[in-house]
């Protein structure tokens, strides 16, 4: 537990499991930065003991919150209820136990069979797109975009038996169409701004354990961008960021597209 003792505030920088164990308490109190948060969440996936300890800490932290309960201002209730009545909700996920971990980011998760079933059940129809908070991204649900459909039809010929097709707008400019079949994932994006020297659009798959790096989008001769990979897992959310380092293992840059089913 003392690998990084010494100077106050010294950056430990050790990546061993020992170090991560000691971060569980800080994590439960949100006293970690984003990089440490990601490390802990990856660790939780494989450490039931830490996940269970975290669960008890999270309950405890919740009581710390309740301890300082203070009546909100008079107008807040009505304002919240009014906003709620015009706010769309995230659809329910398929039921499946996810032992341990914190909901707000990660933790151990077993991708249950019912999750995959739900995914497959959405086959061949354009899906309702849900915004999943890595920030506030604007979404458009499109049904009749001829170019996108033509693209999707073309892609689905490449992938026999697509499970699902999704379309998404990028926050910059541009539009992407994605097709999934099992673990095979294809994306074609058009009208994306070209990136300055060395930067790439990088694909990520996100599950309860956090984001997993995938391939960079490859620019085609006609200006469209293409990504194909076998790294998709049913239930994953999909995101694209702009990265200066194509090999980065954690998302560093801005999110320009996000999708889930």
């Amino acid at each position, binding site marked *: *537990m003392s690998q*990084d*003792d*010494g*100077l*106050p*505030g*010294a950056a*430990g920088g050790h990546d061993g499991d020992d170090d991560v164990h*000691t*971060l569980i*308490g*800080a994590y*439960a*109190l*949100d*006293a*970690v*930065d984003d990089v440490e948060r990601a490390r802990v969440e990856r660790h939780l996936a494989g450490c039931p003991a830490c996940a*269970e300890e975290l*669960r*008890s*800490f*999270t*309950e405890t*932290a*919740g*009581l*710390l*919150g*309740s*301890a*300082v*309960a*203070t*009546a*909100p*201002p*008079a107008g*807040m*209730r*009505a304002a*919240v*209820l009014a906003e*709620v009545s015009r*706010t769309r*909700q*995230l*659809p*329910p*996920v398929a039921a499946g136990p*996810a*032992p*341990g*971990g914190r*909901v*707000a*980011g990660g*933790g151990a998760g077993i991708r249950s069979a019912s999750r995959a079933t739900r995914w497959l059940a959405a086959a061949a129809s354009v899906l309702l797109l849900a915004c999943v*908070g890595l920030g506030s991204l604007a979404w458009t649900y499109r049904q009749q975009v001829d170019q996108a459909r033509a693209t999707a039809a073309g892609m689905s010929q490449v992938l026999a038996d697509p499970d699902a097709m999704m379309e998404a707008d990028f926050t910059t400019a541009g539009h992407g169409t994605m097709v999934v079949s099992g673990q095979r994932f294809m994306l074609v994006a058009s009208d994306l701004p070209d990136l300055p020297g060395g930067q790439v659009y990088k694909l990520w798959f996100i599950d309860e354990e956090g984001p997993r790096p995938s391939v960079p989008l490859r620019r085609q001769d006609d200006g469209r961008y293409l990504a194909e990979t076998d790294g998709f897992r049913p239930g994953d959310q999909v995101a694209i960021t702009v990265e200066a380092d194509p090999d980065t293992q954690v998302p560093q840059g801005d999110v320009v597209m996000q999708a889930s089913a």
Partner: protein
Amino acid sequence: MGTVSILRPGRRTAPGSPATSATALDAASGDPLADLLHRTSLGDEDAFAALYDAVASSVYGMILRVLRDPAQTEEVAQEVMVDLWRQASRYDPQRGSARAWMLTIAHRRAVDRVRSAQSSSDREDRAGRLGQDREFDEVAEAVETRMEAQQVRRALQVLTDLQREAVTLAYYGGYTHREVSELLEVPLGTVKTRLRDGLIRLRDEMGVGA
């Protein structure tokens, strides 16, 4: 509670008492808030209103502790409550109580806000001016006289001064453990230990189930 509650006919909500907001069916579950959250996830706005009455004070009060500014607090607290409506379906009972889940979301949002809104030098100034003792005293003053609050305040006393100081700075101050290490001028590992040991003591003192 200080708010004007518009009660719909036939429904009684008692602010701050989640138990009385639960219907007979809900009471069958061990966690009435979880049932309200579940109904909320299905679009039940009445259930959400009851949920609001049960947790808004905790959400608001905790965010106020972290942000200190009432105007910003109201903004963030409102965002959090609406976000609880939006992502109610994401709650997984396997991971803990509904209250802990909701307060986790609120705390995370408050911490993100305070870290992005203030430069690090500002935050060190703030901590320096207040001193760690005063930070805790302000926490104690803000506590309502409710049984749960009393229990937590008593539990906090069970911690060593050093543990309480670290936990207070981290949770109520929104500082990272590195920032706490710099503020207190102790090694990083020491802070991590104090936070973890402090949580263990609090947990055991308050009888939080495994």
